[in-house]
């Protein structure tokens, strides 16, 4: 049922296609929205209300109100009046039990009204507490805004685009276009954001860029404007922002104001002009200057029964009545008129939200009866009717009396009675009342209920609107999907150059920071055995690797570390712990002296970035003549450990690997299987071991060569799990696992590396104080009496009170014991002290062990 083409019609009548609504085909013209096509097919009920499940029809046709929210192609709560109809789209009603026309939940409106006042669930569903999940499930299904598929996956690819504009104009109406034109004529680069309602998208060859349909969802500090345009979120930086968002037509508050067939004048006009639809057969108009609206209706063939002027004095009483939720008559001051369309207008409120977000003050203009923006911040301008300086003055009554439900907020189904009740209960500030009643908090975000609710509030309390003020405007100003805010799905992962070999070996991978590392190759116990009895190789490419070089390298490192480096000979390696000025442990690693002025520093796997920034931060102040270069990604590293490690290495290099020539804590450069390597003789896992650092590009080759040439020696790869068992047998700590942000070097039993006789180093003063004060807790090894492995983080109990915590615990096959590390009170840090550790609610007995469980003399790693 279309009218002949109207002036401004946006249809292409040559192209028609179907889409599905609740399983039935609906025909649409090219240019239709989903809502206009459904209206043309005869549909009048578009949704059911949030709480009472009352039928609701088209009201604003401008993307403001919640009345046309539908599920379209699986996406819930799409505004059908703004969504272009697409061939084959699957459109469904939401928040109904049954169908839109026969919603079984509408019984709530009949019986529930008196029992479901505002805030009822805060009060009535408090007890018993246990029952809340049941209440909640009921409430969630009864009151809702469509459903999302919990098992659904990303449906679109969403992108974020960073853009600049000299002038960004928001709003595609006449004022926005004029502002864009003016700026473009002045030679500025202009982007205009148009929501699709204005004419901007239809200008041919504009001298500025038009984004349409697109909506600005917020203005943030620094002139950042977020613009949602389909599946792209633009982050605009604009030198000048022109807000031309216009006004929003406000509804009138009277009983029955939510009936199907009650429309805002702008909505009725859009139906006629853009989609050539007749909004109703017999209309009543309630507006200031209603005759012009009536003329438009008459042109569309609607019989206008009466036009009532809205003024200061009259009318006093307006009551709309309906049949089956659709308006059938309206009584104004006792005069009853039959109609199926009630067109209303309560004046136009400037859409100031974006200006308010930008920092403008919002003031009440008593003369015009609206809130207007004042005091715009630098770089932000308002153009057109959003300034509140033009247009007709309309001063309707806050609410018109009469019998029946009078809706203040159609999104959340808040009635005039609810507002009165909230006031009676003491919620007499506008911000509190908003939170209690939820008025302005629904899908329209106050577009249609903010001004009316403040008017009503002022009317009921006798306070002036100026004194009441407004609630705060926050982003998003326009609805935006979470997918758009989340952006493109990506989980950054760092992989070593040997990663694919691990996958081929069937390794179980785990995260350590951004790195993917091998947990194990299936049998950690066997991997541990290989290291103890033969050879194990582990990919340690994730270690942070920094090259510190320059004339001041020694004083620089001596200031950063509590260790001494001046006496470290070239070709030797030292273990070091980085601390803060608070004396806390930050990171650890080895420092090898490669030349007089060149040091190779390793950090923990997750610490490389932090340590690099730490080094550079201190040197920004000190200005030592050193360069710090991050080699973490450039170099791969493999630790070759086990009693046969020397034999394996000897097959691959001409370097003299004898214990005399290449002793524990030596650093040497040599070719291994033809690959230039830096070899560090260090022993984290407690066996004879060589850490090979070499260019990443040789990662797979050297890995393969080691496994291949070592096959007859029983060489096998091992993962982090095996490494954790091995180092625990040696009581070697892991920073971040066995230490936290409170741990210091002294209490962690590493006083030997702190050189208090140095002039200064980071953390010196705090450590001096701690040394004087004495330890508050100590990190010790422990073994369980009964072989039960406690949880990491488990409680150490002394005299029935928690006194410490387990940081690491594992079963050691080699020892046949459950062992671990724990922080305990200092008086228990003695060999053989008895501990109790909470395991599964019970207490298990353990003994303190201060020396390494395996090879306490370190003979094996030095061998």
């Amino acid at each position, binding site marked *: 049922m279309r009218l002949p083409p109207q002036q401004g019609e946006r249809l292409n009548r040559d192209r028609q296609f179907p889409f599905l609504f609740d399983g039935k085909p609906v025909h649409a013209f090219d240019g239709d929205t989903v809502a206009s096509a459904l209206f043309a097919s005869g549909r009048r009920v578009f949704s059911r209300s949030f709480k009472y499940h009352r039928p609701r029809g088209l009201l604003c046709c401008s993307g403001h109100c919640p009345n046309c929210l539908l599920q379209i192609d699986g996406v819930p709560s799409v505004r059908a009046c703004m969504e272009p109809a697409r061939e084959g789209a699957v459109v469904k009603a939401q928040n109904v039990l049954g169908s839109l026309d026969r919603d079984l939940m509408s019984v709530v409106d009949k019986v529930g009204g008196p029992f479901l006042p505002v805030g009822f669930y805060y009060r009535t569903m408090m007890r018993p507490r246990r029952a809340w999940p049941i209440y909640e499930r009921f409430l969630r299904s009864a009151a809702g805004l469509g459903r999302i598929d919990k098992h659904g996956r990303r449906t679109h690819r969403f992108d974020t685009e960073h853009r600049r504009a000299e002038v960004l104009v928001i709003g595609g109406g006449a004022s926005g276009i004029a502002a864009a034109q003016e700026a473009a004529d002045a030679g500025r680069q202009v982007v205009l954001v148009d929501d699709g309602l204005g004419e901007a998208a239809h200008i041919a060859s504009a001298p500025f860029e038009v984004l349409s349909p697109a909506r600005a969802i917020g203005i943030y*500090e*620094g002139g950042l404007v977020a613009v949602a345009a389909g599946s792209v979120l633009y982050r605009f930086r604009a030198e000048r922002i022109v807000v031309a968002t216009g006004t929003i037509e406000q509804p009138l508050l009277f009983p029955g104001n939510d009936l199907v067939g009650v429309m805002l004048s702008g909505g009725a006009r859009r139906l006629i002009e853009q989609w050539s639809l007749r909004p109703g057969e017999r209309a009543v108009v309630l507006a200031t200057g209603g005759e012009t609206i009536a003329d438009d209706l008459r042109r569309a063939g609607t019989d206008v029964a009466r036009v009532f002027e809205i003024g200061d004095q009259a009318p006093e009483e307006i009551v709309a009545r309906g049949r089956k939720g659709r308006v059938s008559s309206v009584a104004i001051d006792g005069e009853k008129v039959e109609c199926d369309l009630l067109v209303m207008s309560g004046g136009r409120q400037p859409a100031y939200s974006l200006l308010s977000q930008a920092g403008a003050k919002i003031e009440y203009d008593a003369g015009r009866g609206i809130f207007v923006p004042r005091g715009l911040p630098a770089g932000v301008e308002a153009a057109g009717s959003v300034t509140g300086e033009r247009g007709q003055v309309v001063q309707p009554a806050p609410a018109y009396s009469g019998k029946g439900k009078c809706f203040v907020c159609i999104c959340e189904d808040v009635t005039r009675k609810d507002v009165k009740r909230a006031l009676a209960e003491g919620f007499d500030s506008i911000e509190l009342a908003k939170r209690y009643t939820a008025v302005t908090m629904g899908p329209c975000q106050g577009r249609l209920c903010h001004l009316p609710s403040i008017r009503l509030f002022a009317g009921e309390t006798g306070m002036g609107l100026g004194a009441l003020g407004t609630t705060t405007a926050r982003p998003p100003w326009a609805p935006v999907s979470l997918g758009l805010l989340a952006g493109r799905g990506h989980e950054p992962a760092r992989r070593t150059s040997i990663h694919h070999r691990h996958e081929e070996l069937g390794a179980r991978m785990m995260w350590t920071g951004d790195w993917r590392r091998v947990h194990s190759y299936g049998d950690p116990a066997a991997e541990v055995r290989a290291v103890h009895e033969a050879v194990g190789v582990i990919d340690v490419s994730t270690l942070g690797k920094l090259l510190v070089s320059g004339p001041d390298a020694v004083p620089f490192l001596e200031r950063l570390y509590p260790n001494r480096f001046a006496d470290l000979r070239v070709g030797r390696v030292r273990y070091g712990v980085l601390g803060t*000025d608070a004396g806390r442990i930050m990171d650890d690693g080895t420092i090898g002296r490669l030349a007089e002025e060149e040091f190779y520093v390793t950090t923990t796997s997750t610490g490389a970035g932090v340590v690099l*920034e730490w080094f550079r931060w201190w040197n*920004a*102040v000190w*200005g*030592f003549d050193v360069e710090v270069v991050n080699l973490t990604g450039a170099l791969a590293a493999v630790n070759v450990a086990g009693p046969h490690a020397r034999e394996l290495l000897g097959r691959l290099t001409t370097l003299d690997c004898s214990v005399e020539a290449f002793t524990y804590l030596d650093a040497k450069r040599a070719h291994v299987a033809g690959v230039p390597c830096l070899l560090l003789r260090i022993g984290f896992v407690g066996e004879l071991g060589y850490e090979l650092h070499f260019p990443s590009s040789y990662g797979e080759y050297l890995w393969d060569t080691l496994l291949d040439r070592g096959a007859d020696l029983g060489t096998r790869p091992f993962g982090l799990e095996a490494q954790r068992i091995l180092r625990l047998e040696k009581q070697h700590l892991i920073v971040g696992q066995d230490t936290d942000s409170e741990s210091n070097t002294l209490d962690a039993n590493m006083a030997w590396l702190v050189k208090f006789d140095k002039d200064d180093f980071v953390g010196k003063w705090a450590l001096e104080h701690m040394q004087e004060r004495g330890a508050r807790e100590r990190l010790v090894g422990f073994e369980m009496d009964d072989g039960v492995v406690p949880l990491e983080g488990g409680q150490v109990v002394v005299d029935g009170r928690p006194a410490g915590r387990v940081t690491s615990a594992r079963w050691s096959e080699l020892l046949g014991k459950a062992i671990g590390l724990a922080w305990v009170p200092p008086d228990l840090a003695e060999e053989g002290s008895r501990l109790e550790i909470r395991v599964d609610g019970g207490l298990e007995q353990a003994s303190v062990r201060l020396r390494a469980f395996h090879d306490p003399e370190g003979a094996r790693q030095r061998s």
Partner: protein
Amino acid sequence: MSFLLPCPNCGPRDVNEFVFAGEISVRPQGPPSLRELGSYVYFRRNVAGIQREWWFHRFGCESWFQAERDTRTNEVLTTELVAPSKNAPPAPQAAATPDTPAT
């Protein structure tokens, strides 16, 4: 936070490219008393107004610099690289040192 910060090397950039490392604190010049140490390590002025602070351009030139910023409005007044002061007795501002991990 979405303001722009002018990096002394790279020019105005989105604040998300930077690491904020807090207001500058003055590291004691010699062995401090316990009270001086405590206030250096743990206490901050936390001004509502113009504050001098450390920034690191992590997704840019990887340089540390200092900024003067109004903490109430996020207006950045100045940014500058710091003149090192290893040997010379430092000027009050240059004596500022980092003291917390840049995480």
